[in-house]
């Protein structure tokens, strides 16, 4: 049976990197690969003033 399962919870892409980094040495290596360009030399606030979404539970509709 082929089914489509939609994630209703926005996992938050930043939290994905953070959770990879939280997994220990191997995870830090993965997170560093993905996040290096975003993080190195860029420890400054982003320019966009986009407000965060009020909830991390956005139904997919």
């Amino acid at each position, binding site marked *: 049976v082929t089914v489509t399962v939609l994630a209703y919870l926005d*996992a938050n892409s*930043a939290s*994905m990197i953070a*959770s990879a980094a939280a997994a220990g040495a191997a995870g830090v290596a993965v997170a560093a690969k993905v*996040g290096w360009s975003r993080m190195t030399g860029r420890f400054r606030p*982003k320019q966009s003033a986009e407000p965060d979404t009020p909830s991390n539970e956005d139904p997919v509709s």
Partner: protein
Amino acid sequence: MTDVRAEPASFRDPSGAVFYEGGRVLRGLDAGAAAEWEALRRTRFFPRLMEEGRIVRTTTADVEARGWAAILEHERIPFVSHPYEWTFEMLRDAAVVHLEVLLAALDEGFTMKDGYSFNVQWRGAEPVFIDVGSFERVGRGGPWAGYRQFCQTFLYPLLLEAHLEVPFQRFLLGHLEGLRPDDMRRLFGGWRLLKRGVFRHVYLQSVIEPRVETSAEDMKKELAEAGYGADLTRAVVSKLLTVVRRLESKRSTSGWSSYRTTCSYTDDDERAKQRFVGEVAERLQPPLVWDLGCNDGAYARLVAPHAGYVVAADADDVVVDGLYRSLRRGAGPGNVLPLVVDLVDPSPGRGWRNTERRAFTDRERPDLVLALALVHHLAIAANVPLPEVVDWLHGLGQTVVVEFVERHDPMAARLLANKPAGVHDSYRTPVFEELLGGRFEVEQRLPLPSGSRVLYLARPRP
């Protein structure tokens, strides 16, 4: 025709919904979720954890489909409570169960869609994972989608208490989605970053979050290409479990933690009160008892053998935590649920339409209410007028065992000592009895031997 009611908190995940039919708790599943269920019930971990009591008992229900692909039936939780009504150790033990269930699921190719503290409920002092709809096969890969939510609604509240000695209940009550990483980082600046779990689970998220705008699906792809696999999800969940298990509350004393040794009861008073309350419970055999202002839960324990279930509520989280620990470690009784509830400011309706998480007094109604050594705190300490107190008791709609502590009792006198003269002049036994008699049929009246306290068994008048 059987009454069908939707569960007001079950609407976010479009693949299913919980509803009630008569006394049954049912969950409708769409085709995708039904396929996940078929796979789930064939795993080894799911039936094992159900058998062990860590996952709510669930079966396929043979009822009208009502447009769903499948309907499940869940065991009924005797009294639904919310994380902001739990003590530190309750939230920690609920977090442990959530993670242990997730680890077992990961071992067999399943994960969870979320990591919400509302996914756990209680059978007495035993935490039980209830969100069966959260399980899904790992197929789509990527990190655990519930990591951030777990941090916000489980880990961060625990860190507040463990590292800063700040009770988390009011924070969770105000923010159902929990505490945010950036707010937590402000609370844990400087050397506090080195506290257990803070750098890894607070600081990293707070630093990375403002700098990443990639969509979740693109991020999953990038992580997979960088070598992210299921072993890393398992590693992060294991590390979370290690952190959570080691967190301890340092607060062991509070205003009420020594009540048992400082209260004004004589041994004769205590015995007479125990006999009175015990005989009432034995005679009424109430399905649900509320012990309001339960302190260390001595009377909740006393009535438990005669009751279906006892909700033991008190505003002092330290004494309720003590009760919880004693129930967990002393193995029972298994039908007492300890909760942190301030009766002067009880949990209101919260969430969407203020109905998603129901107010304390809008859930299962009790069959017997114990209000022992409570009225003087409401009337004197909290300045709730005595007629209001009696009216509130009447509004609970059931038989009450209520204790009135006279103004010359040392405990009442201590409260009155800080009040302006005359403010509580009407706080007197005859006034209370007149009020009580106006709203209740008083069936029994027992003055305790020392002469400063009176117990009443009263049934509300229609």
